């Protein structure tokens, strides 16, 4: 039996990128090799070229777009030659033909906004893969992997066969806050085109309150069990007027200057000794700043009241031409009817400042304290 080179089988490739065919040969030293590529659709030879490489260099390199064009199937055969004087002499027979596809590179990428921005806001991410190919080449399989900041694999979807799923996705859960991760997907089309998204960096920065909310664990030794309890404090608030939404300013303040009110009604109880602290600005005179009541409606309100301060004339009358607007805080006990006024007269500059307000309830006595801060 005559010797023949063995042309290695290959995956589909994008003709725009070129390709290097490799082969095996167990005969004499090769001086040249010749690759012939036939387009299967019409049997036309689209490429036939000798490449002279001295030594056992078992490859034939096709330059980008040199012969094959995308989205066609081809057949390749290879011959090897020895040097005989100035001529090249065929050794053995041509290789068996190898079939291959040239395909326009498929689009294979992540479509999550988190991966596009690189910012992870939640401890769970469902990674969505987007795949398409110009001529409808199908995705055969894929695998989505998660790496830690050292690029060590920590979780993987395993190989998922695309035909068996309705969406190309996988969920990674339990990611840590303030950590760096990398996500990568590998895949292959039905004709073997290798796909790789590359490593995509994700930095986690979760936006949540964690302080004070703990997972309380207890080892129940006799029962060989672990008890798990939460201490979530969840409150419920309503906004008035009903049917409208509160307006937030700078993502850190709620605007209740235009008649709106927020009422916290569930998940807490103010009893015994306690204090309430408010930080607010653009304070509205004659509004109830605070109303604290029990289920029967007893409690107290706090408001800022305006008044005019007139100087006395020399004869002891008020000089109504020189009045100055002042303000005082008024706390009204709804049960016993006390109306308690602050002894401090505040000027109009109060309205442009940030107010820190303390209402303290201790031993059934109220205490009020106010600090003012220049607004920035």
């Amino acid at each position, binding site marked *: 039996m005559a010797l023949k080179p063995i042309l290695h089988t290959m995956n589909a490739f994008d003709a725009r990128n070129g390709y290097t065919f490799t082969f095996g040969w167990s005969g004499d030293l090769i001086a040249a090799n010749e690759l012939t590529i036939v387009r299967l659709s019409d049997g036309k030879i689209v490429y036939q070229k000798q490449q002279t490489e001295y030594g056992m260099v078992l490859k034939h390199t096709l330059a980008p777009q040199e012969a094959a064009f995308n989205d066609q199937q081809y057949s390749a055969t290879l011959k090897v030659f020895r040097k005989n004087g100035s001529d090249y002499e065929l050794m053995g027979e041509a290789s068996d033909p190898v079939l291959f596809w040239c395909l326009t590179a498929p689009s294979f990428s992540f479509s999550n906004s988190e991966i596009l921005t690189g910012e992870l806001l*939640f*401890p*769970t991410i469902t990674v969505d893969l987007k795949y398409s190919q110009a001529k409808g080449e199908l995705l055969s399989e894929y695998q989505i992997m998660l790496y830690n900041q050292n690029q060590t694999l920590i*979780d993987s979807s395993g190989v998922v066969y695309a035909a068996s799923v309705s969406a190309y996705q996988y969920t990674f*859960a339990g990611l840590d806050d303030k950590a760096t991760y990398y996500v990568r997907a590998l895949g292959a089309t039905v004709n073997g085109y290798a796909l790789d998204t590359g490593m995509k960096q994700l930095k986690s920065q979760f936006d949540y309150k964690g302080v*004070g909310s703990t*997972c*309380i*664990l207890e080892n*129940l*030794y006799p029962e*060989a069990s*672990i*008890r*798990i309890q*939460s*201490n*979530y*404090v*969840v409150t419920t608030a309503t*906004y008035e007027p009903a049917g409208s939404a509160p307006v*937030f*300013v700078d*993502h850190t*303040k709620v605007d*209740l*200057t235009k008649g709106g*009110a927020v*009422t*916290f*009604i569930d998940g807490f*109880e103010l009893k015994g000794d306690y*204090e309430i602290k*408010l*930080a607010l*600005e*653009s*304070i*509205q005179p004659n*509004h*109830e*700043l*605070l109303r*604290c009541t*029990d289920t029967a409606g007893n*409690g107290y309100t706090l*408001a800022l009241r305006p008044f005019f301060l007139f100087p006395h004339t020399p004869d002891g009358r008020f000089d109504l031409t020189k009045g100055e607007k002042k303000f005082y805080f008024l706390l009204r006990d709804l049960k016993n009817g006390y109306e308690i006024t602050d*002894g*401090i007269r505040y000027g109009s500059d109060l309205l442009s400042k940030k*107010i820190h*307000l303390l209402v*303290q*309830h201790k031993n*059934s006595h*109220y*205490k009020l*304290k106010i*600090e003012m*801060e*220049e607004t920035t």
Partner: protein
Amino acid sequence: MITGISYFSFRGMDTIPGSTGISGKSLRISGGLYDCLYSSSSLTDTAKNEADWEETTILHAKFNDDLYAGNVNFGIDNTTNVLVKRREKGTFKWLPIFDIPVLGDIKNLDVDVVDRYARCNTDYEYAIVPIINGKEGSYNIGVIRSEFDGLHLIDPTGACHSAFRSEWQITKNRPSVKTASLGSKYQYVLYNSKNNFYTGTITTTFVKTNPELCTIPEPETLDYSMEVMEFLTNGRTKILKLENGQIYMVEIGDNPSLSATEHPFLPETAFDWMQVGDCESNEDLYNFGLSDLGYEWWVS
């Protein structure tokens, strides 16, 4: 910059009497641009709040685009479920073990569950995870070492425990077929299945102990052994846990037995078991009736 400080005063007092016995259940604010509401049972006397959530905190609203004033930024309006997950410390993958539907009731956010399938001598991390608007919220994580003594057999209907005179033997099973061929000097070993599981036998005395008195109420132990026989033969898949850290999902063999010992009220119970699943597999736990956690929480 603090520009003015004043103290509330009335007729010379810096505090004034108020109503007694009022329990504030409703707090309403209006008439300003609010950036913080804070309430605490710890009295500081300062008007400016610099504390975050502490043990004595009652309310803390930051108004960061929401009206939540608890220690979490979710509420019953946007939270559908709370998941409890577990993993061995040092590993990455979480195993969901409980799902608590919130159903619009704030009380359902008070998680209080018991995990009976944790192995011994193992450090575990547990996470309580709210499902907010269909996405997992923050992982609220705690760490604990699981410890117990003796052996425990657990199924959804009950459990039994023995820390007394236990003997066990465990076998790893990897079935294969040995076959000879004419052309080979050596035999072939064929593995015709993926079978790869443990079986074992246990001999022990099940006793009901009184932990406070450290005594064994002897006549009752015989009754208890009979109860255990019923438990062993109830046809339910069980979790077998040993104090050395071994844990298996098992079926009990056909014929558990009781045999007399030198003590008339302390018989020995002996039974065989066969591993039927993976204790760390949600699918196995669900399929064998050991967990009712629906597939929606563990199928990717």
